[in-house]
């Protein structure tokens, strides 16, 4: 029998039992819609975190002091303030694939400007910082290498700081005071938005690290060194290189653990994504259960349908249908119901994700692959749960089926 005829027969019989078919499909519809929405929310959360991590910079490597273990006791990163400017210079000099490197001297301080004062993060950095974090200026420019070597008192303001201290005017060329020391504002950074942890990346003032050390802190250790490579493929090599250099300079014996940590953006992203991944899986698993229940619904209805339509099956067998024709017809019916339910559920899921995203402000991401999988899977549910009832129908004896009341 031709496929077109089979599909026609199946859709005919679905059309003749619209209510029953609709109720049968409801399980699949809800299941698929639930899976789509849940996974869309999960993917949305992940893509948001990914975007925030990427926002940190390009091909960025983060070196922090302290690590793993000291005398067998895990200390965690930053336990020992043991990174220095010498380390920065050594990496700049000797690491082959590292193209940019900067120290980051962090302190918090009150900053006074034209319109008031504001407590913010003061980061002492090198000019490479702009390259590593891929951070453009919206006004003015970043400070120059000469500013760093000459310990000039120049500052680049983050968007938030600029808005607070100079509302409505361009801060470039004006003056701010940090701990009573006047700094010339040479640039304003473009807005970057929130970080992965939810803090404001634009709430910052950048000054040369030499100036920061001399004027603000006087400390000789660094809480962080940032580096980057020309291409993404070099990141792992660069990490290894840095690790070897640092171990050599510190004379860390073979087999002893690092006393520093070298991480790349992906490590940061994965750590941040870990929990959402688990959450997404959990949500998808719960939603899949409803899809399973939907499949059992199909089987239930098809079994009832076989009993109810015994006479019809008898007629078909009497006028020349083979067992396999009846089997295929019932199977196609349940597949059509599965796929149709899947498509409706898909539409509902897409709309539902949009609506949910609209009202909660969550980002939702629907991947085309997921859509395809959802529809194929609901078809498969149709086959799986339709086969047993269909086989039952096909095995009927024509005489008994005809005699059935």
């Amino acid at each position: 029998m031709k496929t077109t005829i089979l599909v026609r027969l199946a859709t005919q019989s679905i059309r003749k039992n619209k209510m029953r078919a609709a109720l049968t499909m409801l399980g699949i519809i809800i299941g698929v819609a639930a899976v789509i929405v849940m996974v869309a929310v999960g993917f949305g959360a992940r893509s948001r975190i990914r975007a925030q991590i990427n926002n940190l910079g390009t091909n960025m490597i983060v070196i922090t002091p302290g690590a793993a273990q000291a005398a067998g006791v895990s200390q965690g990163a930053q336990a020992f303030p043991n990174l220095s400017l010498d380390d920065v210079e050594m990496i700049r000099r000797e690491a082959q694939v590292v193209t940019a490197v900067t120290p980051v001297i962090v302190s918090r301080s009150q900053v006074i400007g034209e319109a008031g004062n504001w407590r913010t993060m003061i980061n002492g950095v090198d000019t490479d910082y702009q390259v590593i974090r891929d951070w453009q200026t919206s006004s003015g420019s970043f400070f120059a290498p000469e500013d760093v070597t000459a310990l000039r008192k120049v500052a680049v303001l983050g968007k938030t700081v600029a808005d607070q201290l100079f509302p409505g005017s361009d801060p470039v060329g004006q003056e701010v005071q940090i701990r009573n020391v006047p700094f010339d504002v040479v640039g304003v950074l473009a807005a970057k938005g929130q970080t992965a942890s939810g803090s404001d990346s634009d709430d910052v003032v950048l000054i040369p690290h030499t100036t920061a050390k001399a004027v603000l802190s006087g400390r000789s250790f660094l809480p962080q060194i940032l580096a980057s490579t020309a291409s993404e493929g070099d990141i792992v090599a660069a990490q290894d290189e840095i690790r070897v250099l640092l171990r050599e300079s510190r004379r860390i014996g073979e087999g002893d653990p690092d006393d520093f940590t070298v991480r790349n953006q992906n490590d940061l992203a994965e750590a941040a994504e870990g929990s959402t991944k688990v959450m997404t899986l959990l949500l998808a698993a719960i939603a899949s259960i409803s899809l399973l229940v939907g499949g059992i619904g199909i089987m239930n209805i098809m079994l009832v349908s076989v009993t109810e339509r015994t006479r019809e099956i008898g007629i078909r067998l009497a006028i020349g249908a083979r067992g396999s024709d009846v089997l295929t017809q019932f199977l196609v019916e349940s597949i059509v119901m599965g796929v149709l339910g899947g498509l409706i559920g898909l539409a509902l899921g897409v709309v539902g994700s949009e609506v949910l995203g609209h009202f909660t402000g969550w980002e939702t991401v629907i991947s085309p692959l997921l859509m395809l999988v959802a529809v194929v899977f609901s078809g498969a549910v149709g086959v799986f749960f339709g086969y047993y009832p269909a086989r039952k129908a096909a095995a009927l004896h024509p005489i008994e089926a005809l005699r059935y009341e």
Partner: protein
Amino acid sequence: MSVIRTSSLTKTYASGTNEVHALRGIDLTIERGELVAIMGTSGSGKSTLMNLLGCLDSPTKGSYELDGVHVETLSRNELAKLRNEKLGFVFQGFNLLPRTTAVENVELPLLYDRSGRKLDPRALAIAALKRVGLGERLDHQPSELSGGQQQRVAIARALVTSPALVLADEPTGNLDSRTTIEVMSLFQELNEEGVTIVIVTHEPEVAVYAKRVVEMRDGRIVRDEAVKNRRQASRDLEKLDERSAA
């Protein structure tokens, strides 16, 4: 060549410990163009014979040749193909698909056709419905048709494949006396056009419209003869009309 030729056709059902001999050796030959009534009370074995002749069941013993094909050795699928191509069924309860239009019901056998013939099911179904006088009711569903009309749809479905034999099982069992005569008139008309028809019935009033009557009792043929005083259903209908007009 005979349409039906059986020899010593036997059917035994095992019912618990004892055996039920439904058919005890039937020798029956039906030629092309015959209109045969198979009669008998319930339990006479006429339904069993009907099922065997209709290739819906296999005999325990004996041979059955339908339109030159030996049936007793065929597989389930071969039987289905044979039913599809050589037989047309008309049942007591009409057995039309509910919520399905007349034309869809009639084209159904053609959808299961495996002969590879190039057929237009829709056109053939419409032609068959016109032939039974239902050209105006193509898109009506069974629930919108009277009993007589439903049985005509069933007859059209039996005819649509141009079968070697139309098998009717108590075709008038659910109909009133006037509709019964109408349906028999249609059978006579089709028979005149060359269709071989076997009608299984327990009503003598129906058998008088056949050309030949085969009577069964206890699984055996006890009478097989040409119908004496054969009636023309169309003439009986005219008489009925005159009477109701008067």
